[in-house]
């Protein structure tokens, strides 16, 4: 299935900003994160089609997945 993956902030460094990527059916958000080797240390949250989602959520073909670093203070 095709998933539009968007990375935010430091996750873009040496990766990409937005890309349509191919995954097998039943892939979870966590598997995408692991596959991209995103740092757990700064992993914040994920949005599926703009809505907050659990890392264990299963993606559907055509979903747009955004992965963001933590937001803490300023």
């Amino acid at each position, binding site marked *: 299935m095709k998933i539009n993956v968007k990375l935010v902030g430091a996750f873009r460094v040496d990766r990409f900003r937005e890309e349509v990527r191919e995954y097998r059916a039943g892939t979870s958000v966590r598997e995408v994160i692991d596959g991209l080797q995103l740092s757990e*240390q*700064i992993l914040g949250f994920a949005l599926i089609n703009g809505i907050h989602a659990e890392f264990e959520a299963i993606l559907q073909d055509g979903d747009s997945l955004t992965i963001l*670093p933590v937001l803490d203070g*300023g």
Partner: protein
Amino acid sequence: MKFATTDPATNPSAVFYKQCTIDLQTGEMSFSDVPCRNLEDVLGGFGRSFQDLAQRQIDSAYCDENPLIVNTGLLTGSTAMTGMRTYFSGYSPIKGSKVGLPAAMWSTGSGKFGAKFKWTGLDELIFENRSAQPVYVVIKESAVGPQVQLKSADHLLGLSTHDKIMSLQKDYPDAHFAAIGPAGENWQNNYMGAVALSTENQLKSKEDKCRFAGRGGMGSLMGYKNILALVAQSSDKQAKPSELVKAANRNVIEGGGSARIQPISRGGGGGTWAAYDVLQEFHAVPVNNFRPQGNAIPEKLFRENVEKEYDIKSEACYRCGITCHNNVSEKNADGSKGEFLAKFDYEPLNLLGTNVGIHDAGQAARLIQLGDNYGMDAISLGVTISYALAYNERHPEKPILNGAFFGDFEKICELIVQAGKGELPEIGKGSMRLSEKLGETSYAYHVKGLEIAAYQPESNPGYAWAIAGGHMSMGTYGLLTREGKSDLDSWVQGITEDKLHIVGFDMIGLCKFFDIAKGIGTQMVVDCLKSEFDFDVSTDDLRAAVRRAFLRGLALELRQGYSKEEFRVPAEVYEDPNPNIKLPNITSPEFLEQLEKRVWGIFEPELEGLLD
């Protein structure tokens, strides 16, 4: 401090802090070892100062009875990472209720001044009355205990925050400094004066890399008292950390609590600046006075775009591994580092950048630097200017001040300089007063008279219950954006329990980045207290003390005349909702009404007797 107990929660009066009270009018000083009233006193910071402020009925910030209290926290100057904080407390010139009474306030900053102050042997300095002449105050250690001297400061008058520090460094090469700028000196017309705190980096490089205790106009109160600077002269006393503290410090660095703040090169998120990227996902980066336009304009100040043209270096306070300062300098033609410009933290960058229509990093840096040099709180300054620019946008035929509009760099510079010199009270006195004078209050982005931080109020109705500035005394700014919580129950729980604990850091002497999500009621802090002072304190004791201190702040607000209606985000947010923000609406009048009812229902019964 002196400790005659290992159980400060049940036996606080066996802990004594060294206090010096100075009557600035007569020059008289008295030193005493004061027994603590409760665990809040032991922890220090605003936990202690607010109890003292509560004992005074103050009707105007600029009166002799309003003290300026300078103190530290229990872990300031300790081996615990980030233990650098100094606190400045008093009744605020800028934050006040609609009936005209000033609110109790504290502000805090890092740098090394706090540790040096603590190492003189003094824990608290209370300034009473005001000096007839400009003075600076030297606090130094001696064989017989801390000594305090008042000295003429005529030679410091009119200097910038940085220049004052540089001038004093020549006379006190082994000291650290806290200084106000011209804004604080011109306290009559500038209520947002900040206190600059020197860093090791600043004293070595001679570049203006201070940290600031900015919020609430404590620099203006210091200016009113005619104190231009404080000098803390002591030898460095930081011991080697114990195994317990080492483990806690390692956890601070590796445990994730400070991860986003650390440099990207170390696998961190790159400082508070990274909030730009996250909030832009929701079109929730403040633009042109908190009206995001649903476009990509904030991206111009993303780090990835700025670093193409500027040199960015991650630096830190003395012995802090978090390294949260992003210091931006010009880049020379050969790629080497040029002139230092400013540090890019999220708040000043947004509020003196995107939110005033400035999208060029170099221009934003100049505005931040100007505000810092004149010694003003970047948040109050930026938000009051953005209000004036919004007014002019709405009234192009009859603009106010110098007729500046969003993005007009030269004219915004002019506003900052004039405000800093005390020549522009319209800006210097903050957005509440300006908006009331102009009769257009709905888009003045303050809550309870204090300008809000760079988080859209649409994402944070919790601003209403922050007791000392919107983001650092109520940690709800990420509850919707980060945690995705838009239901009433989560917001009630967040405001009345989980997120108020952020203020614990403003008692104990640590930066919030020590563990911003969990507060100070953690095993890490318990371990540090055991190791440093042999204290047996539980996480529950700590949480209870923080809650009492927070509620005391709330009770003090009510005593200073705030009505419940003043505990609300700016009216534009619910009267004219911004369709561009991609977040669930949690600031409708109905939601706010329910939230207010339930939050007060929990807080109110607990406020009884707290100020007795």
